């Protein structure tokens, strides 16, 4: 009787360990200061740029995620969970009048953040040692309007437990219901172009707490 109890206990422990092993660990990289996002546009008078150094959010992926550039590319089994937040108020041009026009056009009163949620991520073909690049698709929400955007992003471990994600894409203001501003101060002569190129460099750092996938 005693023996059989021990066997049962042993089997239980082995089964538990096996269960743990079969679930990969979930790793979370949290946004940290040091990021940059630039919105580059045009107008009939001159090109313009607004930028912010606040990119909030997180990346969550399992421990199988191919994060080592020294290894060749591999398939992704699961798309990481990525949520990005940029406060509209943090976007600055260096000119307060232009900022007011921009914030107003982006309906900041009602929609305080620009958000992005990753939907799909595929590693690009590369050789071992090349930067980690991915084709991505995700939902970008600006002024309350959601639109799918695709872009190539590069991920680069820059320090122990620190990850830099960079990318670039071009969107149209009108796709998000934003009428390209024509400030009254320009007497209607200054018209802003519809296209806006977004460049970003997003710094994240691994969170101390680790959660297991099975615990979620």
């Amino acid at each position: 009787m005693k023996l059989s109890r021990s066997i049962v206990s042993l089997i239980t422990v082995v089964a538990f360990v096996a269960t743990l092993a079969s679930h990969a660990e979930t790793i979370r990289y949290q946004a940290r200061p040091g990021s940059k996002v630039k919105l580059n546009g045009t107008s009939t008078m001159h090109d313009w740029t607004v930028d912010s150094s606040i990119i909030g959010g997180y990346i969550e992926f399992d421990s199988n995620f191919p994060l080592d550039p020294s290894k060749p590319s591999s398939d992704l089994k699961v798309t990481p969970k990525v949520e990005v937040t940029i406060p509209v108020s943090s976007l600055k041009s260096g000119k307060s009048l232009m900022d007011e026009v921009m914030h107003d056009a982006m309906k900041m009163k009602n929609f305080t953040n620009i958000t992005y949620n990753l939907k799909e991520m595929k590693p690009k073909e590369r050789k071992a040692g090349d930067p980690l690049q991915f084709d991505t698709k995700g939902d970008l929400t600006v002024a309350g309007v959601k639109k799918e955007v695709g872009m190539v992003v590069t991920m680069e471990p820059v320090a122990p437990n620190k990850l830099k994600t960079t990318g670039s894409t071009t969107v149209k203001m009108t796709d998000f219901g934003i009428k390209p501003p024509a400030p009254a101060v320009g007497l209607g002569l200054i018209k802003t172009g519809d296209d806006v190129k977004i460049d970003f460099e997003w710094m994240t750092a691994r969170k101390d707490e680790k959660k297991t996938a099975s615990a979620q």
Partner: protein
Amino acid sequence: MNKQNSSVELNRRNFIGSFSSMMMLMGGVAITRSQDKAEPEKERYAGPPINCAVIGCGEWGRKIITELGRQNRANLAAICDTYPAYLKRGGNAAPKAEKVAEYKQLLDNKNIDAIIVATPTHLHKQIVLDALQAGKHVYCEAPLAHTVDDARAIAKAASGAKKLNFQAGLQQRSDPEIIHILNFVRAGAAGSPVMTRSQYHKKNSWRRSSPNADFEKTLNWRLDKGISVGLVGEIGIHNIDAAGWFMNRRPTAVSGFGSTLLWNDGRDVPDTIQTLVDYGKGPRLVYDATLCNSFDSDYDVFYGTDATVMLRDRRGWMFKETDSPLLGWEVYARKETFFKEVGIVLAANATKLAAQGDNPTLDTQTNTQGSVFYALEAFLNNTDLVRTGVQDFTTNFGAEDEKALVEYLTDILKAKKPAADWKDGYIATVTAIKAHEAVMKGSRIELSDELFNIA
């Protein structure tokens, strides 16, 4: 409580109108900022309003209340004064604002974002320290304090409040018209600085009428030697600040003399003063003020080796020396007669005015708001930058990394509107306090480097 008194002054606008005509005849070079034909577009503001409270509803406080009502970022939530009559008058200009007698009530109110301190000077310190401690952004009228110790305490608290905006009430530092003239002087258009001269000439007693004898002393704090910094401290501080700002130098010594020549009503603060402010081995500021004679009112004159710039009622004129080099802008300037000489008049945006169909030779002015409006606009704009900056940062990264937060704020504040910070306020205040001390003693006082160190 009242801050300034202009009850028996000449009508300034009329005076300046006649003065401008006189200057035309004299042949000055008018330095006016880029002039748009229409009023500049008022900034739209998409963010939440900044809830402000004004402490001190005297004449100057009420001016601030009125100007705040014209700002698109401000919501004047409350006003405060211990004197019921002033509180009532303040309420007339801000009927929706809460009225309180005790300023600590405002500090306990979480909805108040910013405090504007317009009380008598000797009451500033405790209010400012309490307000910063309570996490409020602060605009403190100049002078910051009536003693160096109090000024230093304010400067230390303001410099340590990294997540708050502090502005000293040296309003001309935010005025686009004056900044434009400053740029001319700083660019060397007048040559090397020779000296500056400023004056304040009024004929009024500086005494406020009181409903009863008990309150008379409280109301007339400017005439009380124990707490007043006199004419040079209350009025001349703006001229002292302008001189140092234009010449980009810090004062090194002050000398002064004072007398009571007309208002022999028992006061112990002189009604007429002369002061001299040294700037090392360089040029000096000569400042005189009187309450006994209003001739020629108030203005600043910056003398350089190539030209003289007069600054008066937010406008500037340049008088070139005959041997001064050509600068290039004279092409667009109009010529006027100054006695037997021919002067050149500048219209800074001649090309732009011509493009708009205007005559660039006409002297126009579009920054029609007063300096206080622009100073409050800068305060609200910069407060908004700090407030949203702190909020954006802490929402996304938490509040633990204070160093990174301060770096972020420093970066976004590169785009702030020009305004007097705690350092500008401290230097001007200390210089003015010492100048008043020199006036009272009839002596010269050296201003050591340590005096300007707030540590």
